[in-house]
């Protein structure tokens, strides 16, 4: 639904605000005008996180544009890219995967939940690190 062009991110504006964050020592700047809104935030002094959101009329709750082949987290938990510590990862970027092939696991409540490929395709991106926390709906892997 969301096309890249719809987001129309103003890179200079983001950079300006990021610089302002730095300068002022603020942790967040939000600016709204008419129906556009921009918010930049910094959680730690070292790594400024930048979020840009445009008003979403309907469902899309995540600020990010969602690629067509996105595989999203069905639950909150910790992602692991390998079946066991020390073993090879389930998949790596460039791999061809078939439908239902395990891509990674999410540990939630001490239970390992395998996440499978919803369709065949090539692994274009792996967006989570091994052992990193993921939230519901977060993009884990992009297939193409």
């Amino acid at each position, binding site marked *: 639904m969301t096309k890249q062009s719809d987001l129309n991110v103003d890179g200079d504006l983001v950079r300006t605000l990021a610089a302002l964050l730095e300068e002022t020592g603020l942790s967040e700047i939000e600016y*709204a005008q008419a129906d556009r*809104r921009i918010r930049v935030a910094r*959680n730690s002094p070292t790594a400024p996180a930048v979020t840009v*959101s445009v008003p979403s009329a309907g469902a899309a709750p995540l600020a990010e544009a969602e690629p067509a082949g996105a595989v999203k987290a069905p*639950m*909150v938990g910790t992602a692991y890219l390998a079946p066991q510590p020390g073993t090879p990862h389930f998949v790596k970027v460039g791999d061809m995967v078939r439908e239902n092939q395990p891509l990674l696991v999410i540990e*939630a409540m001490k239970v390992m939940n395998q996440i499978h490929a919803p369709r065949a395709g090539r692994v274009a991106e792996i967006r989570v690190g091994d052992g990193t926390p993921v*939230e*519901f709906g977060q993009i884990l892997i992009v297939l193409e």
Partner: protein
Amino acid sequence: MFEKVLIANRGEIALRIHRACREMGIRTVAVHSTVDANAMHVRLADESVCIGPPPAGDSYLNIPAILSAASITGADAIHPGLGFLAENADFAQIVAEHDLTFIGPSVEHIRLMGDKVAAKNAAKALGIPVVPGGQAVQTIEAARGEAKEVGYPILIKATAGGGGRGMRVARDQAALDELFPVAQAEAQTFFGNGTLYLERFLERPRHIEVQILGDGQGAVVHLGERDCSMQRKHQKLVEETPSPGLNDAERERVRDLAVKTMTKLGYKSAGTLEFLFENGEFFFIEMNTRLQVEHPISEMISRIDLVREQIRIAAGAALGYRQADIRLSGHSIECRINAEHPDTFAPSPGTVTRYHAPGGMGVRVDSALYQGYTVPAQYDSLVAKLIVHGTNRNECLMRLRRALEEFVIAGIETTIPLHQKLVVTEEFINGAYDIGWFERTYDRKTGAD
């Protein structure tokens, strides 16, 4: 003290808890459904985790997701807020099993008070009066005997019933003789079970509740009573403290009762004992083992921050003050502002195109609204609480009126116009209302407009 608290709730109460945490130097984790990604509590929290899709069952009631969120963020305690999992004893137990602190009462007390029958029995055992009656009766002879015990007027109810179906009021034995067989037949037809029970019928009771605070270490105090008699379909519309319907002796009696019995129980955290009050008698309805929507009015007269106290107590602190140290001063009223049509009460989710909260002396607004925020259709319609304080009830009423004049929420329908009309009614001004008043008198009048 906790380093990081996960707030397992949404809306104004999530914001309320966030505020208390921030003021104690505790970091906050907001959890939210996908539709709440831009909610105020998410925007203000130190960290946020999306825990599921919009339906509450998949997000705010999703225990594994909430515990996983606590785990990945390293939270050391969970505040359940109110509604959702706040009175779920299993949740409290699972939280504890995961070595996290549940900010609330003990699992045992939540479980006890969560079961209506067990709670009523516990209340009786503690010496709290309950509505007389409740014994199953099968025959008219048994009913006559029971009715004498209970006292007229009597409400005849089906044990298998609910929602008012099959209920009859008998004002004397003649009426009982006439209505009992009818009710029995109706109960048999509707519920497949003709068993009935009798209960004292309260004509025009007030809803009086006492806010208590215990540390589980022997100390229990009250923060006064709240009068929540202004109701529509069992939903509270307006609450005030002190109650305008009690005299000083009655007021002291119910406050003392709450403190004495909760001391005996060894209650920990904030809690509320709810009563019906009629003709000088209090009857226990239930106990809420959690924060309540109307808690701010008790905060206004006591200046004690209930959420802060819940957190302190959960962290093991003792209360540190006695009843004599608490000074309840002035009068406070809360108006619940819902995203509903002020006449039809039809829900009105949508985008808030204009938001301006009233300010000035003695005015507090607890709301997670902001201009541009979209009120989702999936949850409760409460969007703002307007709480005012005055040195006396009249000052409080005048201030409330003034604050309601200033409050602007546009883009969605709200019950602000309802409250504006309500606060100038003679009955509200005189405090002469009971739990049936709104529906009996006012709702009808409005409908006829």
